[in-house]
């Protein structure tokens, strides 16, 4: 005990030691309990969350024919933070890209303006939609490129080169869609048009996740927690369409070389049997790496193959409007089955007749002969049945009624309870519209808007609406919203037409006589009684459009069709035989008139329409 006075210093030393240890315990408390960022850091370090993409639902036609299925494809992804010491030249060689392209791609990935979800910690798409043969060499040498991964995907494969507009296609999701639906991550695919778009949510399935452990060098060390935390991907639901692929193929074939559309509907169910828009394209060209190149080519094609004319193009219905006019005018007491009007043929006024026939004509003959003066008189006596001028308010009320009953055939509005993507509204001109055009409520009357009586004025319809209006006629007064997905819930969407059933038989009579002795007599089909109406629509930009609407058979109709062939001339020449051939195939199962089929197929109305 030499330094007794110094003995107290042991307490100073003990205090120093204690203070340091207490500080360390507080520090431990701070980083282990108070702060959460270290936990997150650990997760992003060690867990590689690998997305498992579900196979997309398959698409079948109404008879169970497989239309769309999947084939494997591969994406190359990278995690910027993990890339180090890679031999860029050999990497580029194994992926068959140039070094300039490599640098450009990396630059685009890092550019937050182009890639808003960019993070150096998460996988980013480097190359997408590669074939197995494209990635084979890369896969063998992948260990040399830390930070690069191969991601399995599926791509669409099409059994037929047809129905592109119905099926739609798959493309990378846009930034807007990612913001709207947080299911998507940058680089995901989603349906872009048609059925693929409408039924995206059930077709896409649910993405799964696999949690892998990886070490500091990025090497995968196995599954985390033996895969107990993994979420398996659940496959998308398969979809059965209402389409009859045989009928669709025939319709597309008959439209070869022509611009226009064909829509066929099963009247009882509203199921769309065929939906053709020509020019079209092979859906498989919008798959894989060539997609954007091909897409741009289609976008710049002057014949607009990307546009779905069947639902988007709007035409004056012309004479195809007459059966509806006949029904509404009867309902409103403007005419009855015995009403006759005189026709002076070409010298009729204010609308001349394009056909020569006896005079006067009744309703049935007027439909058969497509007599313009008859329908002008019928229209006038309907909306001016209570006069005009002093009675202007009553006139306008009558006009409103006409509009309302006309629209009840599914015209002038989009089908909002169906599943068709990108429709146009069409147009049934309203009272308000004419008040505005003629600057006063009294500024117009039947004669002012007489073109509407024969479907030429301001009335506009889409081929789909036209086909649906025929389905409503065929059903004697109702229609089910036309749709593409074969399901029972769709059948409940019944819409009643505001025309009583008793007014239909005479229209049926008139329309069947069109085949027997009228404008479509050359297109009649033995043993099946068909109803139809041809139409020739004046077109200020060129030759007349040829239209046809019809249904068959007359008793218990199975198919209602609308056909538009742009710039073709007379309806009977082009559109009617297409209907006849389609009805034959659908009702009889095969075509006996192969000569007619070939002849129609070979007709070219627009030389710019490319063969597929």
């Amino acid at each position, binding site marked *: 005990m030499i330094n007794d006075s110094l003995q107290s210093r042991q307490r100073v030393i*003990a205090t120093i030691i204690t203070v340091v240890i207490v500080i360390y315990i507080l520090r431990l408390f701070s980083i282990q309990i108070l702060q959460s960022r270290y936990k997150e850091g650990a997760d992003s370090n*060690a867990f590689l969350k690998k997305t498992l993409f579900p196979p997309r639902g398959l698409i079948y036609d109404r008879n169970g024919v497989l239309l769309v299925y999947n084939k494997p494809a591969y994406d190359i992804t990278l995690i910027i933070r993990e890339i180090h010491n890679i031999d860029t030249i050999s990497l580029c060689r194994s992926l068959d890209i140039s070094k300039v392209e490599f640098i450009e791609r990396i630059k685009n990935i890092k550019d937050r303006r182009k890639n808003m979800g960019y993070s150096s910690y998460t996988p980013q798409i480097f190359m997408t939609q590669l074939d197995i043969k494209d990635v084979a060499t890369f896969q063998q040498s992948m260990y040399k490129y830390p930070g690069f991964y191969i991601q399995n995907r599926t791509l669409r494969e099409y059994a037929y080169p047809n129905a592109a507009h119905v099926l739609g296609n798959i493309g990378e999701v846009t930034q807007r869609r990612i913001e709207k639906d947080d299911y998507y991550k940058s680089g995901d695919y989603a349906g872009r048009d048609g059925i693929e778009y409408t039924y995206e949510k059930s077709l896409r399935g649910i993405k799964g996740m696999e949690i892998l452990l990886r070490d500091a060098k990025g090497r995968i*060390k196995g599954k985390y927690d033996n895969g107990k935390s993994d979420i398996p991907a659940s496959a998308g639901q398969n979809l059965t369409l209402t389409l009859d692929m045989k009928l669709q193929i025939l319709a597309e074939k008959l439209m070869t070389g022509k611009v226009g559309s064909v829509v066929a509907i099963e009247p009882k169910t509203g199921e769309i049997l065929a939906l053709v828009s020509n020019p079209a394209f092979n859906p498989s060209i919008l798959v894989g790496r060539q997609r954007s190149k091909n897409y741009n080519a289609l976008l710049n094609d002057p014949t607009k193959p990307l546009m779905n004319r069947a639902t988007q193009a709007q035409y004056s219905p012309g004479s195809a409007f007459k059966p509806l006019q006949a029904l509404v005018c009867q309902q409103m007491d403007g005419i009855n089955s015995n009403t006759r009007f005189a026709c002076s043929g070409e010298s009729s006024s204010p609308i001349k007749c394009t056909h020569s026939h006896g005079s006067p004509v009744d309703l049935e003959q007027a439909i058969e002969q497509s007599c313009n003066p008859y329908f002008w008189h019928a229209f006038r006596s309907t909306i001016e049945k209570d006069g005009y001028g002093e009675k202007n308010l009553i006139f306008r009320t009558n006009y409103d009624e006409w509009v309302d009953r006309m629209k009840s055939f599914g015209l002038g509005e989009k089908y909002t309870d169906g599943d068709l993507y990108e429709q146009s509204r069409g147009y049934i001109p309203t009272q308000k519209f004419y008040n505005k055009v003629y600057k006063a409520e009294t500024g117009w009357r039947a004669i002012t808007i007489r073109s509407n009586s024969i479907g030429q004025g301001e009335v506009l319809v889409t081929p789909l609406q036209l086909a649906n209006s025929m389905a409503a006629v065929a059903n004697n007064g109702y229609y089910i919203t036309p749709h593409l997905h074969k399901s029972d819930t769709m059948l409940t969407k019944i819409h009643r037409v505001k025309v009583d059933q008793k007014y239909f038989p005479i229209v049926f009579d008139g329309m069947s006589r069109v085949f027997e002795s009228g404008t479509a007599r050359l297109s009649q089909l033995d043993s099946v009684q068909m109803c139809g109406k041809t139409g020739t629509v004046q077109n200020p930009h060129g030759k007349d459009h040829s239209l046809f609407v019809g249904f068959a058979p007359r008793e218990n109709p199975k198919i209602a069709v609308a056909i538009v062939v742009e710039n073709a001339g007379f309806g009977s020449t082009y559109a009617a035989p297409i209907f006849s051939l389609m009805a034959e195939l659908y009702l009889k199962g095969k075509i006996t008139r192969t000569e007619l089929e070939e002849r129609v197929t070979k007709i070219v109305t627009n030389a710019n329409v490319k063969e597929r």
Partner: protein
Amino acid sequence: MSKNVSMKYALDWTTVAYFVILVLMGWVSIYGASYNFDQSGILDWNQRAGKQFVWILTAFGIGGMLLLVDYKMYNFFAYFIYAATIALLILTIFVAPDIKGSRSWLVIGPVSFQPAELAKMATSLALARFMSSYNYKIKNWKDIIPLGMFILLPFILIILQKETGSALVFVALLLMLYREGMNGIVLLMIVLAIILFVVVIRFSMATIGVEQGTVGFIAAMLLILALQLGYAFFLARQRKETGYSLIGIAVMTIFTLIINQWYNVNFNYASIVIVILTTFYWLFNGILNRNKQIWMVAAISIGSVFFCYSSDYLFEKVLEPHQQVRIKVLLNMEDDLSGAGYNVNQSKIAIGSGGFFGKGFLNGTQTKLKYVPEQDTDFIFCTVGEEHGFWGSTLVLFIYWLLLMRILRIAERQRESFNRIYAYCVASIFFFHLMINVGMVLGIMPVIGIPLPFFSYGGSSLWGFTIMLFILLRLDASRIERLR
């Protein structure tokens, strides 16, 4: 035989228990840290845990043998052991192969050994012998020089082996010197130097005006002024003079700012001038009042100014680039997540992700997947933090605290100053290792690669610490032998 029986009573079994607990916990942690997903078991000889088991068994053997040696031998052979170790250190510099830039490992066949681990024990023994001699006085300059030599010699030799971390451990002996009578001012000055260094370096990038000085330097000068005023006001109780000094500082500051309107003043130099002028004022004042302590205050002030002035130079010229980066990362001046900051960041992530209860034994993802470098040696504490969480790491620190307190208690119960001085050497060295190692892992100490006693993987360090501890236990056990 009688000796063994007496040892049973004389040995401090508590310390032995702490030792065994720490060694076993370390072993389990090494198993956790080096665990592979396809590993067979803890006794796999090809794995580190298996090897560590061999080191542990041999360490127990060495410890047992050291207890059998007559306690007088340690005192008797202290200088001889020191000389032999120094010779070994010199030899090592020349024959050791270059392992990651360090030349500190002696490789003899399959075994490699680090003599620096022995140097701590040898120096402790030599210091104990020297300082316990009859005519030794710590205030005597004649004795301070050889004392310094005892410490400096191994320090320099280990620096030459490029093992800066191991060399710095000798700084810990200041704690022992403090217990043995060194002026406490020395410890305070070290703390002051660290604070000034950190302040100057941390804010050396923040410049004032047009490159007219740095925030760090001026803050350091203000700190010195504050110390002077604090001393005068609270300890020397010269209230009036403190006021005069404050007024003087204010006047000089305003004067500087006025001059600055016409001429760009270097504020660093201006603040130096102010500190020197106030220092002279206090000196003058002290002479008048016959206050001898004022000389010390003046010396510290001038020394601090000089230290601050040269700290930039020290930082950039004396420290190596990688050491500079480590300090910058520690001071949050750089965020180098791929380089020097990576280790510390990953180690914090590993510990932080453990939470309160930890992820469970062998469930740590960060350590298992090798995110933490040196995870079974210098960063072994990460494994504890990740797998056993807050309670586990706190428990380990608590056992270290118990061990250190126990050693202090043993030290104070010794009748011979040789034993006490040696015990304090052991406590200081263990404490320094613990403080630097755990502090580094927690990101509050610079990265200095020294092992955690008894925990880190490696035979040399385990043997080194075991030898130090068991010599102490043998010396302590001699209390009872002497009583008989």
